[in-house]
């Protein structure tokens, strides 16, 4: 698909015009009535030290400064939110990023909520692995500390009692942020001393042909929350990546990387129910991709969690365990095997475990793990936090990855690392 520039510009122009008008109205309403405005900011500094050397890296250390300024104007019926995201990596410029995380105007009427602008939309009930959570963008330039980002969309939510219908239309398409730069330890291309060139010929065009929409009907009945979802979208992560050697540069092969982002039809459902002190949840999606060799497939995540508010002495403990399946019902399995690790299908079966222990207001420990049950790839992340006061958190932690070459975590097993940082909430 080749981008049609005039059409893309028209769509942006129309959306931005409507957005500016709505923002102006809501800002005026908020300021005039003076009900509520808020400015806050989060500042974070991270030091990351990779344990093992690798020829392709510029540095074994990353120093990153991230700032998230946020402005909110709100009255009873209207609001405007703008949150920036500025990240400077002092060692690897490929990680530096300056963007708006969210910028939207919203209007709340008796039964309807309207939202227009760049926004993060969260669908589904699962954690970490979320089969129906489509309408947001991720920054995977560090896959273990992925950052959420909004997409430009119009959203209408109609609430009737304990039921609601959510409609989302995203007129333009953005891929997730992934790195094709072999200098980045989290790049999705082989980390070898070879040159790469990125071919975006198969990236969806910036026109209405690439617009996406979704419908979600949610219900709360007899102590159970459940919903049904349909999404007409495009894979935000590449459906698959093709590579071709196209020449030789300074005696080394020049490889062309061609990501393919295909159309998808997603049919999903999720539910959440508590029994006594335990909470059970599930999320499933059946996906038909407009690529015959990798379609269809279904994903299921089943989870159980519990909060022990008096686990021991004054210690609180939250535990979440999930079991995830990602299964092809067609020829996808053969296709994936032939093409190596597919970043859209990391495993066939896996378990995840989250363990958050709050020893006191000051100290807490967080451990997260994923185990690929079929091929044995594994990830363990740990973080110990010290909060001397409410607005300051200092933390140290470590990430451990292991597995065979053909597994997702095995591919990045040289990226074990130590990290330390501090976060200020202003």
């Amino acid at each position, binding site marked *: 698909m080749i981008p049609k520039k005039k059409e893309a510009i028209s769509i942006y122009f129309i959306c931005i015009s409507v957005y500016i008008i709505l923002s102006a109205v809501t800002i005026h309403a908020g300021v005039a009535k003076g*009900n509520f405005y808020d400015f806050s900011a989060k500042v974070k500094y991270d030091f990351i030290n990779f344990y093992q050397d690798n020829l392709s890296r510029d540095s074994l250390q990353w120093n990153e400064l991230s700032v998230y300024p946020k402005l909110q104007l709100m009255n009873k019926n209207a609001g405007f939110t703008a949150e920036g995201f500025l990240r400077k990596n002092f060692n690897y410029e490929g990680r530096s990023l300056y963007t708006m995380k969210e910028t939207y105007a919203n209007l709340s009427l008796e039964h309807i909520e309207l939202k227009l602008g760049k926004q993060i939309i969260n669908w589904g009930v699962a954690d970490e692995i979320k089969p129906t959570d489509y309408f947001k963008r991720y920054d995977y330039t560090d896959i273990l500390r992925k950052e959420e980002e909004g997409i430009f969309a119009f959203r209408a939510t109609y609430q009737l009692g*304990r039921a609601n219908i959510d409609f989302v239309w995203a007129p333009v398409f953005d891929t997730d942020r992934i790195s094709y730069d072999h200098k980045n330890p989290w790049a999705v291309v082989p980390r070898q001393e070879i040159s790469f060139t990125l071919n975006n010929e198969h990236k969806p065009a910036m026109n209405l042909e690439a617009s996406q929409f979704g419908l979600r009907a949610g219900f709360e009945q007899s102590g159970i929350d459940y919903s049904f979802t349909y999404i007409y979208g495009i894979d935000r992560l590449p459906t698959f990546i093709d590579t071709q050697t196209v020449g030789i540069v300074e005696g080394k092969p020049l490889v062309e990387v061609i990501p393919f982002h295909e159309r998808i039809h997603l049919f999903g459902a999720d539910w959440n129910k*508590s029994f006594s*002190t335990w909470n059970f949840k599930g999320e499933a999606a059946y996906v038909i991709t407009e690529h015959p060799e990798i379609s269809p497939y279904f994903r299921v995540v089943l989870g159980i969690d519990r909060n022990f*508010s008096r686990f021991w002495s004054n210690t609180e403990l939250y535990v979440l365990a999930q079991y995830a399946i990602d299964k092809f019902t067609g020829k996808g399995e053969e296709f994936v095997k032939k093409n190596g690790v597919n970043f859209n299908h990391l495993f066939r079966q896996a378990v995840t475990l989250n363990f958050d222990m709050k020893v006191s*207001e000051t100290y807490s420990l967080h451990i997260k793990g994923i185990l690929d049950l079929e091929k044995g790839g594994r990830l363990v992340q740990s973080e110990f936090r010290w909060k001397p006061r409410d*607005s300051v*958190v200092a933390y140290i932690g470590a990430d451990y990855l292991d597995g065979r070459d053909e597994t997702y975590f095995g591919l990045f097993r040289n990226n074990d690392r130590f990290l330390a940082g501090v976060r200020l909430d202003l």
Partner: protein
Amino acid sequence: MGKFKIPTWIIVFLALLNGYSFASETSAVEIMRSVVDQRRTNSEKVDIVMTLIDNQGKKWIRTGRFYMARKDSENDVRLFHFFTPPELAKSGILTIENSSGVHDQWLYLPAYHTTRRIAGGNRGEKYMGTDFFYEDIIRIRVDEYKIIELRKEVKDGINSVVLEGIPVADRLKEESAYSKIIWWVDPQKKTMLGAKYFDKKGNVLKLLENSDLEFVKGHYIWKKQLMFDVQNNHKTILEFGKKEIDEPISPDMFTLRYLKRAQ
């Protein structure tokens, strides 16, 4: 063998004693019921300052707003929105009580942009990280306790009645963190002056001190509550500021949609 006869005076004495005990229990139940009924409003909107004091003496201050309304004759609905600190700002918790005793409860965390159902079944769990347990927040179901009067006592210059409550309802016995509660009650104003809570092993677990009483819309309401966890040397002080009592609150306030719209 001659018949063993219980002297008549012993029978009369035992009957009187039993009658006294029954009368005492009935009276104690009624006193407790009057306290609960006096405090129960139709609706509340209250600004709260919450101070947590850890075992090192360090203070952690949270502010927020609490909404409550009657769902029906037995059950209430509750919503709490945090304003500060920044880490908790705009997060909230919505609770819808059910007669089955299994309450629906959702948490909203702005960082995750979503509401999450959380298990609301255990009354003996901490409420929002404070030293108050969920069973301390909800209305006391008097019928679920065996309540007797222990003594009369002058507490802080007030002639109070000291009541003892022991959980007897099966579900309460199973879920409660307490084996026994002692309440200090002012029978004149029908208010609870304080309480002492005992854990399942019979050890003192927590102490409650209420202070600064005010009369609002026909209800005596405390402006300050101190809950002291004696086993962990941890305290929570709740200070209730601006309040609107028995003012109409829209039922829409107690929905997931409003939970996400802290104001």
